[in-house]
């Protein structure tokens, strides 16, 4: 078991030196986006300074370098997630684009009038809206599996809602509000017993948990680079090749074709069939470096460290007067984030106060309005951790909360 040297890790992130309002930065909004190690920033700068050119086209050395670097990252993603042969990795703009791609290219031809798309009450809007749009077009219905009061998936309810009309299941791996880690292996198994394909929204999972995709076995698996130390503008859809072969393209344009005439076009092979136009090449390269960084530390180590830290956070937060914490009590059942409300202090007032002492948390509905309706509150405060957060930062958060309570009492 390797002890993580947090101070060494923190020294890799230039932004953590920043001061806000005369206080050192305490960044606790990692579920929204993560900070970048110098190595990632430098990898992108180096690409622009050294190898920048368009990929897959040029016969000159710059283009060959760029192409090799880009395609290397695809292989890197496969190794990182232990992706079996029957899957392919598609680069997209982010998790939201991945769900929309599946909705358009897979859902359009599969979903018929009267069909049901099964999601859960704890989904992020990016895993709800594409299905609303699709259902409206097709005369289908989006069904929401319920949550327990502890913020876990009500598995019996999920099973009951997996009906003869269900033609797609789309579920979050880790809730971005509750931190709940869903039993996705069981979900996939259950759905596959009825020949129902499954999409997993892994945006809050891949950055924090070791993944063996073959053990999970979903049809589609989506996540974002910027939530795992990578740049914005790039994400991944891992999908079964069998589906990708028969799916229509998502975006049409250059690179995704084989031949074009005035009569029509034929498509390029998978994965390039789904990567139209000039992709964010520098971002893919930055993403590759982020994967290296995480792999070198080890996802098991990161997961263990976060579980310990979120356990500490839960302990400290439970000591705050009039606090209501949402999601599983047991740190082993949740990812490294905690959402809560302070009775008598509005989330916006609390967030502004915390900002005045250098602390970044998020106040609002976190793109999960149906979840907040289920919780019975319009907004919550969320503190979300990553590998560079410390106990001292949790202490500062709790101290800030107490000061805010005193000020706004």
């Amino acid at each position: 078991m390797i002890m993580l040297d947090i101070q060494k890790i923190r020294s890799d992130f230039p932004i953590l030196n920043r001061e806000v309002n005369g206080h050192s930065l305490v960044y606790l909004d990692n579920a929204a986006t993560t900070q970048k190690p110098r190595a990632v920033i430098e990898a992108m700068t180096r690409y622009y300074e050294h190898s920048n050119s368009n990929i897959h086209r040029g016969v000159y050395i710059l283009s060959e370098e760029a192409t090799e670097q880009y395609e290397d990252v695809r292989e890197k993603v496969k190794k990182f997630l232990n992706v079996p042969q029957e899957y392919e990795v598609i680069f997209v703009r982010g998790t939201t684009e991945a769900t929309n791609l599946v909705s358009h290219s897979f859902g359009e031809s599969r979903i018929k009038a009267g069909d049901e798309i099964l999601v859960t009450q704890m989904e992020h809007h990016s895993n709800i809206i594409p299905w609303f749009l699709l259902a409206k077009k097709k005369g289908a219905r989006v069904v929401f599996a319920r949550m327990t009061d502890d913020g876990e998936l009500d598995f019996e309810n999920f099973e009951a809602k997996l009906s003869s009309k269900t033609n797609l299941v789309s579920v979050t791996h880790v809730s971005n509000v509750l931190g709940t880690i869903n039993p996705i292996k069981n979900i996939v198994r259950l759905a596959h017993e009825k020949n129902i394909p499954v999409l997993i929204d892994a945006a809050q999972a891949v950055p924090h948990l070791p993944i063996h995709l073959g053990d999970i076995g979903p049809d589609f698996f989506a996540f974002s680079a910027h939530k795992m130390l990578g740049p914005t503008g790039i994400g991944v859809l891992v999908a079964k090749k069998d589906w990708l072969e028969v799916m229509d393209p998502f975006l049409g344009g250059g690179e995704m074709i084989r031949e074009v005439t005035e009569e029509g076009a034929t498509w390029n092979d998978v994965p390039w069939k789904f990567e139209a136009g000039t992709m964010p090449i520098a971002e893919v390269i930055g993403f590759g470096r982020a994967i290296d960084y995480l792999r070198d530390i080890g996802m098991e180590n990161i997961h263990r460290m976060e579980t310990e830290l979120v356990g500490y956070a839960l302990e400290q937060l439970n000591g705050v007067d009039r606090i209501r914490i949402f999601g599983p009590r047991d740190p082993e059942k949740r990812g490294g984030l905690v959402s809560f409300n302070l009775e008598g202090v509005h989330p916006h007032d609390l967030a502004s106060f915390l900002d005045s002492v250098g602390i970044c948390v998020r106040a609002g509905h976190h793109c999960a309005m149906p979840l907040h309706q289920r919780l019975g509150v319009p907004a919550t405060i969320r503190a979300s951790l990553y590998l560079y957060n410390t106990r001292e930062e949790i202490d500062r958060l709790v101290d800030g909360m107490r000061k805010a309570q005193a000020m706004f009492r």
Partner: protein
Amino acid sequence: MSLESLYREEILDHAKHPRNRGTLSLFDADGRAVNTLCGDEITIQLKWNSEGRVEEIVFSGTGCILSQASASMLTEFVKGKASLDLKNASREDYLDSIELHPTPSRLPCVLLSFEALQEALTRSTK
């Protein structure tokens, strides 16, 4: 604007002891605004006097300190003013008069009651 100015004693006082909070059983105009980001909502009701000036104005709703305090201060700002003056009041003039200049992320909180007022004025026949 610093936190100390944003949440100065005057603001906290307005939030804790709001002026003109309530509802009217009879009113000439009403308007409502909701901030879906946090669920804050303000309803404004007002009555005109015979000269077309605001005789009575009340607000109701829930929300953060800034939204509640600014709603309370809005009612004081509005009383006695003529409809046309209110319709022509710019956001900047209003924020200057209540001396609240929050960062962009909190602007919707401070302007929530102002939006409700504008809706009331739009729907009013005067």
